[in-house]
Structure formats: C-alpha cells, structure tokens
C-alpha cells in the first residue's frame, strides 16, 4: 500500500501542475484584441527601461534592462565580458555610464549599475519558474546596435520550451545586439534576458530571471564565475570532492578524494547524500542546477545517511583545479 502511494505522488503533482497552468487560449477576436492591448501596454511602459550597452574599449554593443529606480541593470554575461564600465544609451539617445558588477557566465547572466542618482525608468522583475510552454511574451532590445532612427524593435511570441539551468526558448526572433535585452511577460515584468539563437527562427534562447535570482547575491557582490555554455572541466568550478552515483534514496558516495574538502570533514564511501544546500538530490545530472550559483570558498550544508542515521555536515567548496591538479586536465 505504502509503495503504491509513493508511486502515485509524482503523477498527482504533475497533473495538478498542468491544471494550474493551462496553455493560454485565444478563442475569439475579443481574446486577440485583449492580448494586443496587453502587448501595446508593455511596449509603451517598458521601452524606456530597455537600454543599449556599449563596451567603450572593445566597441561591442548589446542590450540591457533597468530593474530598479536606483539603476540596477540586468544584461547578458557575454555583453559585459572584458569591461569594467559600459556606455548606456537610452532609447531617446541620452547617454550615461554604468559600472559592471558581477556575472555568472554559465547562466549568461550579469549585472551593472548606472552611475548617477536617478531615479531611472525601470521594469519590475518577474520570475521564469512560473512560465510555461505557450505563455505569451514580448521581447525588446537594440538589434544590430543602437540606432537613433528607431526605438527598440518589439518582438512578440511564446515560450516554446524550457531548458536546463533556467534557460527559456521563445519564438521572439532575436539577432546580434539584442543580447542582454529583456523578455517581458504580459504584465510587463522582466522574465528573461536574451542570450543566444539557433538557425531555426523559433529557437531564441533567454536566461530565465529565476536563474538571475538564484545567483543574485554573488553577482551583486561583484563576483564573476562560470563559463559560457557551461564546461564541466572548468578548473574554477566549485566542487565538494565527492564522486556520487545514483542510489535508491539519494546519491551514494562512491569515492572521496583525499585532496578534497569532503574528505577533510569526514565523508566516507557508502554515505548516501540526500540534500545539498537545502535542495533534495536524486539525479547526478541535476547537481549542476545547484552548483551553478555557488563559488569556491562558499560553505554548503550536505545532508546524508550513514548506518540508517541522518547526519549533516558543512563542506567548504574547493576549485576543481585544486583537487585534481595532479591529473592531466
């Protein structure tokens, strides 16, 4: 009986999820007109917060969006790469300066801050967790760079799929220069930041705002980490020093290298890890979702079972390169 209930749980959760999040329907001209009004309102109110960002030294140009009246800017990590300051150009041509804060390259997420007092035009932040396939969205940006003859071109579309580490794919067509620009929901909240495209026009990828929120503290503090597109061999990647394998109730420790921090706090092969940093772990492949926001030097609480007893230890994360430096990587 117990087993059956366990098996039922995930199915129930799934079907409830889909009930809660029905694909938005357009069944009449009235629905379509209502949708159009929402899009026009987003454009009218959020255009001024959609800025062009130019790297003064490299000359590369991308986009960004202001998310607070004191001038916090969200953009793509590859837009600010190699720059300490960025030239900010508003849609009306006004020119300002921003200081680059931090970036999580794996998420292609970055922050900058306008110098000067403000108040600045801004768009409120939403989140990408609650977005579902079929949700309508509006994209803006400065495609092909700032152009004084036009305001940021509007693109309308839908969420086509959701991907790993909070990336979203929409059919809002993007091109070079749009990078870092905002994806809005129909309430005009920022739900994503433009990142990259596929050759298919329906594949336009955005870093989801929930991912920004998960990396918030470290980015705001000016930390830069990660690798564009993700790279498991990145020597700066934070690691615990545990080799984990999928087990029935969690992840089983297969190996504890002596050079790693997990060895230092007493982890042993056979321990079953059940949560890391407060997140339940069941698949090795999903660990990336937790570690993508962490930095070497940060402490994470690891909950595990040893001899039928639940225990918790804090592991101070190390650099991958420091643990495995003897190996040829």
């Amino acid at each position, binding site marked *: 009986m117990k087993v059956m209930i366990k098996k039922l749980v995930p199915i129930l959760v799934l079907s409830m999820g889909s009930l809660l999040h029905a*694909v938005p329907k357009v069944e*009449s*001209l009235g629905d379509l007109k209502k949708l159009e009004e929402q899009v026009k309102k987003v454009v*009218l109110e959020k255009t001024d917060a959609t800025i062009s960002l130019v790297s003064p030294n490299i000359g590369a140009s991308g986009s960004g969006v202001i998310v607070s009246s004191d001038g916090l800017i969200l953009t793509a990590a590859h837009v600010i790469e190699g720059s300490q300051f960025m030239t900010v150009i508003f849609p009306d041509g006004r*020119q300002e300066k921003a200081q680059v804060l931090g970036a999580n390259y794996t998420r292609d997420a970055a922050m900058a801050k306008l110098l000067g007092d403000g108040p600045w035009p801004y768009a409120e932040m939403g989140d990408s967790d609650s977005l579902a*396939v079929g949700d309508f969205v509006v994209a803006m940006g400065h495609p*092909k760079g700032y152009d004084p003859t036009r305001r940021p071109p509007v693109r309308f579309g*839908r969420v086509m799929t959701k991907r790993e580490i909070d990336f979203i794919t929409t059919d809002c067509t993007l*091109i070079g220069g749009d990078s870092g620009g905002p994806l809005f929901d129909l309430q005009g909240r920022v739900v994503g930041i433009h990142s990259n*495209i596929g050759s298919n026009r329906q594949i336009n990828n955005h870093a989801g705002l929930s991912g920004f929120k998960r990396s918030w503290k470290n980015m705001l503090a000016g930390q830069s980490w990660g690798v564009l597109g993700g790279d498991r061999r990145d020597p700066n990647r934070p690691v615990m020093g545990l080799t984990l394998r999928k087990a029935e109730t969690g992840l089983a420790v297969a190996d504890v290298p002596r050079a790693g921090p997990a060895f230092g706090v007493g982890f042993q092969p056979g321990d079953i890890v059940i949560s890391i940093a407060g997140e339940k772990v069941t698949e090795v492949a999903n660990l990336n979702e937790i570690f993508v926001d962490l930095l070497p030097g940060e402490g994470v609480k690891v909950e595990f079972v040893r001899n039928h007893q639940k225990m918790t230890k804090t592991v101070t994360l190390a650099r991958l390169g420091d643990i495995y430096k003897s190996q040829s990587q």
Partner: protein
Amino acid sequence: MKLLLFSTLLLTAGLQAQLTSPGLPVDDKRITDDQAGQVFKVLRAVNFEAKDVVYPIYSGRERIAYGVSIGDEKLLTKASEVLSARAIFTANRAREAMGAEILGVYPDHDLAVLKVPGLKAVAAKWADAGNLAEGAFLTAVRSDGEAQAMGVLSVRERSLKSTDQGFLGIQMDPRATGNGVRVEQVVRGSAAAEVGIMPGDVITMIEGEKVRGFYELSTRLRRLKNGEQPEIELVRNQKGVKVKPTLKGRVIQENESRRLQRMDRMSGSQSRVREDFENILQSDMELEVNHAGLPVVDLEGRIVGMVIARAGRISTLILPGDDIAKTLTTEPEAFVPDPKMARRQNRADGNSRTRMNRGPGLLQRLLENLQRDLDRE
C-alpha cells in the same frame, strides 16, 4: 575615417549563433502548434476583406510574389521580384492562369503595376498606418483568407534612407564623455567645413541642449533632416563660438559585420531590394522572399500596408497604406528594362524556346504546377 567607422562597424555582442542548437521537444511542439492553429483560425475573421484583393504571381513553375488589386485589371506588386522574371501570370479565383504585363514602376518604392487583361477584382482600400502603435497586431493575408504570418508592429514609420538624415561631417571619438564632444576631424566639403568647424573644437550644445558624448550628439544630428540648420555651440581656445551649419545628407554606408550577415542568412531568404525605403514599417512577421506583395491588415481588418521586403531574421518591411495610396495618385514611370537585364532575359527566353520545342506539353505542365500550388495554399 577610423573613428567614425568604429561607431558604424559596431561589433554587436554575442548571440553566438548555435548552429547545432537542440530543437523543440515533441510535446512542447504539439502544444505550441495547436496554439498557433487556434490563433490563425481566429484571424480568419479579420482577413475577410483583404483576401479578395490578393493574387499570387507566378513565373514558370514558381510563385515569385503576390500582388494586390488596385482596380482596372491592375495589380500592385514588388518590382524587383517581377521585373527580371519571364512570362509572369496570375490566377483568378476559378484557378485559371491569366497573363500579366508590366505597365510601369515606382522605383523609390520598389513597386510595379501589372496589367492583367480580363481580371475582375475589387480595388484594395488602403488605410492609414500612421496611428498604429508599436506592438499592434498585424497579419499578412493570402487569397484563401488564411494568415501567412502574424506579427506585431516592431518599429513605426521611418525612413531607411541615410541621405534623409542630417550629416554634419565631423569625426568624434565614441568613447568621449563629459561636457561636450571633441571634434577629431572634419570631412572636406561637409556642413561642418562650410561653417569653419575645426579639429579640436568641443561641441557643447545643439539646438539649446547640452551634449555629453558621441551618442547624444550623433542621435541629435541623425534625427535632424538633410537641409535643416541646427544652432551649434562649441568651445574653441576657451572661447564660446556659435555656428549654424546647413546639414547635408548622410553618405556613410553602414557596413554590417560578417557575423550579423551570417545570422540573417542562416535564418531564411532575404529580398534583394530591402534597403533605402523612405517610408517603412518594420514587423517581426516571419515570411519568405516570395511573400512580398501580401496585404497587411490590423485587427480591425483594415489594409494598413503591403509586404515589400524580407530583410533578415527579425525584420519584415511593410509599405504603409497611406503612402501607397498617395503614390498611386501619381503616374508610374515607364518600365525600361536595362540592357544587361534584357540580355539575360533573352538568354532565358532562348532556353525556354528550346525546351518548348522539345516538348509541347510545357504550358500544360505549367498549369498543372499552378493547380498544385493553389491546392497547397
């Protein structure tokens, strides 16, 4: 030219094209396809009037564009798609092929007027596009009443012609910020040279407003028109100087980086003529080159324009309805095929004659192809 080129050859950051980007999961594709089907079904209600004025234009076995009826057995279409094509024809609602000939052209608009003897079609009522807001929904309507694409107004009416924009003729450092912008060089014969602006001058105000950098000044200038006379204040040897140059047209060619060109190319076909329009709307409607000439309607069903070019991954260009109506009150220019094109055409005709000799069924085949195309639509 180095400094100015820096500003025009901006490397637009990133959006590294991932040519191998994974596609869409089957379940998600089904959801979004169903949703699109729903929207397109609703759109039939607004496409109602426009569908009666659209006609496909064929050359040989291919549909090369669409035309919009302007009455009097005439269709309006995209000139550059039909001028070099041989033996163009359309089809009436009974799916009978009807030959078309070129009556005249409006070169600035890349428009051609075709005469189709025997065509009975009502003339399109062109609506004013001037009051469309950015974000307004637009559809490109086919003759079967279906939307070929739906999109929004991305950018409202503007000129793409650089010579319409004011050009002062100075080079500045794009990195410059502060109180004013230093003139690095002056282009010979330019508006700046005419009023004696010199390298080393620092431009502080334009039309009574302070400028604090390259982008502010160039935005102000490019939003002025060729021929305007802005008052410019500058500092020379610590002394204030006022000048009033007569701006000329911008002659700088904006070359796009190879990366940008590649992104556009990989995202579908682009019209050969897609630049320099004087009055144009931009939409994100996803179309192909041979959809030029489709009428564009808003949610009220008004024909607010006509598709005139596919201009890259994010851009479809639309001639505004009011501009088309105004243009049609003037006489089109006579169409004189340029000799080079005529030579090419002769060669093509020669080829078709040979083929015709080899098989008398060519016309029959053409009609069959046409029938197939119409069925597919």
